[in-house]
């Protein structure tokens, strides 16, 4: 990869981050809602301080958040904050910064997304490749094709059905939550087992929801590759079907799938966020849910921005590791 493409991709990354942060800056500011006032009006209803005090507090906090400055200066401060990874302070959990809150819940989400993505990518591509491979047995082809039925169904709906059948009817797995109520988080084997039991259904929902897409695209790719001359040549050379499958067929078909993985990241994270909400798992999704419920705007914007930047960065990273997989690009 030469310097030109490198700088081009970095410029693209910069543009995506800039666009996302500009959108998150301007949309709330053209909206008629005033998050600070809403927050304190809510407090005033429950805590009972007089309306005049409310005005003073709102004015004070607006100043503290820099909302009284001219728009352009606010925009500058905001961008400078993002450059320093400072996403502001939570309105609801006041002294904590948004970054602190994100880092508290991030490991849960990363764990869930990482494991389910790897699982569904490997399983889906393997099944898709076998479905297109003429020598694989018929039952395997029909198993692979049956996964296609789940394609298009959001994982969260599969999650609800799984909760109903496995959690509610059969009572085999818990209905939700990170660990059983009453257990104390510790590094004991029992606790880890309990944790995994709770992650099983959401994980299954996410895997089932995304395997179908990989099966379809991999099967399409596999069918195309079968007609290629190099596969025919390898057959005529007398190579075993196992070697052809692994080195000629899988390796070539897998390359576009890696690009597909980069493009699918956004959907995967979105699905995971919504699934977390349904299963009441701790993580970014549940944090977003509760921030929406309590009108904690700085947390909502912070999460959106953080995830966007993370996904755009991951996409660029995938493009950078692409040459490692494809020698044709490496040697250019």
């Amino acid at each position: 990869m030469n310097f030109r493409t490198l700088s081009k991709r970095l410029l693209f990354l910069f543009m995506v981050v800039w666009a996302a942060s500009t959108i998150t800056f301007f949309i709330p500011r053209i909206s008629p809602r005033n998050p600070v006032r809403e927050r304190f009006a809510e407090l005033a209803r429950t805590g009972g301080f007089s309306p005049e005090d409310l005005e003073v507090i709102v004015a004070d906090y607006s100043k503290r958040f820099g909302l009284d400055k001219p728009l352009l200066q606010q925009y500058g401060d905001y961008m400078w904050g993002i450059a320093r990874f400072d996403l502001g302070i939570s309105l609801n959990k006041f002294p904590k910064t948004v970054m602190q809150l994100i880092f508290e819940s991030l490991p849960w989400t990363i764990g869930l997304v990482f494991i389910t993505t790897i699982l569904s990518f490997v399983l889906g591509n393997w099944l898709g490749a076998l479905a297109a491979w003429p020598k694989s047995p018929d039952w395997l082809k029909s198993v692979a094709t049956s996964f296609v039925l789940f394609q298009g169904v959001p994982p969260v709906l599969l999650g609800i059905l799984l909760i109903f059948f496995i959690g509610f009817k059969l009572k085999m797995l818990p209905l939700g939550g990170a660990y059983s109520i009453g257990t104390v988080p510790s590094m004991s084997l029992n606790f880890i087992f309990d944790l995994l039991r709770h992650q099983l259904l959401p994980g299954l929902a996410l895997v089932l929801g995304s395997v179908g897409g990989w099966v379809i695209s991999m099967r399409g790719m596999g069918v195309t590759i079968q007609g290629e001359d190099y596969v025919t040549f390898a057959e005529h050379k007398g190579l075993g079907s196992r070697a052809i499958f692994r080195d000629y067929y899988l390796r070539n078909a897998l390359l576009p799938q890696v690009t597909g993985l980069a493009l699918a990241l956004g959907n995967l994270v979105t699905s995971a966020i919504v699934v977390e909400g349904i299963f009441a798992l701790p993580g970014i999704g549940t944090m977003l849910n509760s921030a929406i419920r309590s009108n904690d705007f700085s947390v909502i914007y912070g999460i959106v921005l953080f995830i966007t930047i993370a996904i755009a960065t991951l996409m660029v990273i995938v493009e950078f590791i692409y040459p490692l997989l494809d020698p044709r690009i490496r040697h250019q």
Partner: protein
Amino acid sequence: MSSVTLSNTAIRQPNKLTLFFRYLRRNPSLTFGLLIMLFLIIFTVHGLLTIDTKHAYPLAVRPKQPPSFKYPLGTDFFGRDLYAAMVIGMWQTAVIGIVAGALGTIIGTILGFISAYFGGFIDGAITSICQILIPIPAFLIQVIIAGSIDKRSVTIFTMAFVVLLLAWMGPTLVIRSQVLSMKERQFVSVAKLSGMSSLGIIFKEILPNLLPFIAAAFIAQVFQAVFASFYLAIVGLGPVREPLLGNTIWSAQTQGAFFNGWWWWPIGPAVAMILILGSLALINMGMDEMANPRIRRSE
């Protein structure tokens, strides 16, 4: 010498309907998708004609009743008849999907045309805006927009608008690439040489050939719009008062429906949503096959 006599009866061309059914037989995903869609439409129309719409809103019936003969899908914690809520919710989902899908497709088609036909700076600007916006997860931006609107004034049309704001890039790029390839075809050159105007070429030569792609893009957009509005509703950003399918699941979840044993509350809307999205995905797959004759199977 015996002469070969041709039978006088002309070969009868089967009428359009027969041809359509014959095509459906060769395209199972389109057939299944259309059948499910037909079932959903009948269910909703029949429901709209028979239910009392008031029952879809809180405090209308006895709360927390399991499915019974009187309430086929049960009633929820707030005293809504879930059957009525589902009928209204499906109707509203259809409205959001069709409004946002149609507008997104129209905007995308226009932008795609402009971009491909005029090229140069305009093309560069439109495609780079699309490429920068596509990696940003639309759902997250929609969360911000929906969160910035006053919750009490959110209606299903606001939902459609929020979804629409980030739903035009897909069709723009699809139509652009199709127009680009079509522009180089010979029939366009012939039209150009015979002195046809730009607008004439666009509307009389290119547009009719693009219709299958526009139809496929429309179905894909409806799918996206239903999906996006469902996700927004399920995190609690839907119109609070309406029994939108995602809203019903959201309220069931916030009231701990499964923990309390009210299993019928979230299951109905979840199954309905699976059927809606499933049929749209199947129709989409079938349309792809129709729009792209290369993968169309021979008779």
